[in-house]
């Protein structure tokens, strides 16, 4: 039995790529293997990483499930790497080195017996598109799991070069060389198509924004990912590809929405549009009726106050409206430093309804905040 340890990925960026071909380690799993694996969820500083790991496993498994695939068997408490017959994935502090993750491979002859993947918990990890992206690194390490060595570009290059959540043609060709192409021929598989069906390009949006896409592929769509800017909103593996973007925690203004479809062999297609997120409603908008009377002259005033929304930017003013019957009357427009307003000469015993809107630099009013001022 030959045991082999292989350090796979370091933290340095690849500065230049060259034309390359896949490189095989010389060992592989028997064709047709369904490799079970467990994940140590408790050993990482971050949480929620399981979905990223499973997504990477699904991407490799989708290449040719009958040739090789990976199946999640549940959590494990094992930390680090051990030749124990169990393929584990976990996090362990490996010190402040440039290593992001390491795949340990035990083999006998040309046959792999076991793989353990250890992510370096001394690094900073992200599952939402930041660095280092768990899914990208997991996809790379799983390339070693199937038997691919480093190449000079693509997912199997030795250095982290940003987010890549699909298997490039070179790595895919290496996989096919070891485990065969799927029925119909992986090489003849056409890339998927995807288009965003809602919202419309250039639309003014706010609140919960329906975000839908239509995707298709000649051999099936593996997943569709929805992005707002560079942030992954959700990942869907089955049609209909519909989600909602909660825009309340996004800055107003021009925003890019992108949908990325990945087919069963990792080919991708994307569509992106620009929309405008109108200003958020100012929070904590409220009002109270106050008596401003002097000794002989009576006056009641509705005093209104609000706060600046933390995700509003480039706001030029606030517009305050009062409901008079079925008509909204503009009471005033205030600069962004003003967070209170007075509506004078209101009736003592009447109730009033107000709407406040932030207006961006393009003159676009945002969502309205409503406040009611009751009689004292």
């Amino acid at each position, binding site marked *: 039995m030959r045991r082999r340890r292989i350090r796979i990925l370091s933290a340095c960026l690849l500065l230049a790529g060259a034309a390359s071909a896949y490189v095989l380690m010389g060992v592989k799993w028997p064709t047709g293997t369904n490799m079970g694996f467990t994940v140590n969820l408790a050993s990482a500083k971050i949480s929620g990483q399981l979905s990223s790991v499973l997504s990477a496993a699904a991407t490799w498994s989708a290449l040719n499930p009958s040739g090789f695939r990976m199946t999640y068997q549940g959590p494990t408490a094992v930390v680090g790497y051990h030749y124990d017959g169990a393929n584990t994935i976990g996090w362990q502090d490996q010190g402040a080195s440039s290593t992001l993750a390491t795949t340990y491979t035990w083999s006998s002859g040309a046959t792999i017996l076991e793989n353990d993947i250890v992510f370096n918990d001394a690094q900073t990890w992200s599952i939402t598109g930041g660095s280092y992206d768990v899914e990208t690194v997991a996809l790379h390490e799983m390339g070693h799991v199937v038997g691919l060595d480093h190449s000079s570009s693509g997912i199997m290059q030795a250095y982290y070069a940003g987010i890549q959540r699909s298997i490039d043609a070179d790595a895919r060709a290496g996989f096919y060389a070891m485990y065969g192409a799927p029925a119909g021929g992986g090489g003849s598989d056409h890339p998927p198509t995807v288009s965003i069906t809602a919202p419309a390009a250039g639309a003014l949006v706010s609140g919960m924004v329906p975000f839908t896409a239509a995707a298709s592929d000649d051999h099936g769509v593996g997943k569709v990912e929805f992005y707002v800017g560079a942030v992954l909103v959700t990942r869907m593996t089955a049609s209909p590809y519909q989600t909602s973007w909660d825009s309340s925690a996004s800055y107003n203004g021009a925003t890019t929405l992108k949908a990325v479809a990945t087919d069963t062999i990792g080919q991708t297609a994307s569509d992106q549009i620009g929309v405008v997120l109108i200003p958020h409603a100012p929070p904590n908008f409220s009002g109270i009726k*106050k*008596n*401003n*009377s*002097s*000794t*002989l*002259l*009576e*006056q009641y*005033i509705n*005093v209104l106050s609000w706060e600046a929304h933390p995700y509003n930017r480039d706001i030029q003013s606030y517009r305050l409206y009062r409901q008079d019957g079925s008509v909204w009357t503009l009471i005033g427009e205030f600069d962004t430093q003003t967070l209170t307003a*007075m509506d*004078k000469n209101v009736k003592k015993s009447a109730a009033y309804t107000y709407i406040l809107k932030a207006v961006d630099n393009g003159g676009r009013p945002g969502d309205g905040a409503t406040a009611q001022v009751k009689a004292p």
Partner: protein
Amino acid sequence: MMRKSAIVLLLMAAAAVSHVGAAPRDAFSVKAGAGYFYPAESSLKKIYGNGTGWNAEMNLKLVSILDFWAFGNGYRKSGRLPVTAESTTMRLTTFGGGLKLRAAAGPLRLYAGIGAAACAYREANAIGVAQGTNVGIIGQAGFYLPIVAGLLIDLAGDYASIKVKPAAIAADLGGTRLAVRLGYVF
């Protein structure tokens, strides 16, 4: 109300003048000085506060220990509206007259009286202007001390109640006033 009070005041003044020619010494005095006004109306006190103003009066002996008494005083202050903090001003000018009883206690001359008071008021601010004249009642008590050669020093306190309602709000523009005056007794 106001017309009736004015007639009363005129009758009092006529009675007083009819005695001028026969007035013995101590029968006529004038006093002038400063008063400090404590408004009775809470909103007046809250917005404008207590305050000083001019104060003057004359007394004319009618019979024995009974004097006719005429007076005037003023109060003018500015303040801020309670919510908007806009500037507001209040001016009160009060004239009136009545009858006083006088008594001697050693060198002091004690007196107490009651009468009618006409108050001309004007409040102006961003809300608008309220002005007019209303009549109320006033009571006064005090004493004076002859100093030398007809000069006297006088300390008095009075309380007036003058209710007005120019618009939606009713208020009592009276209050308590303490006055220190110098005078001359003829």
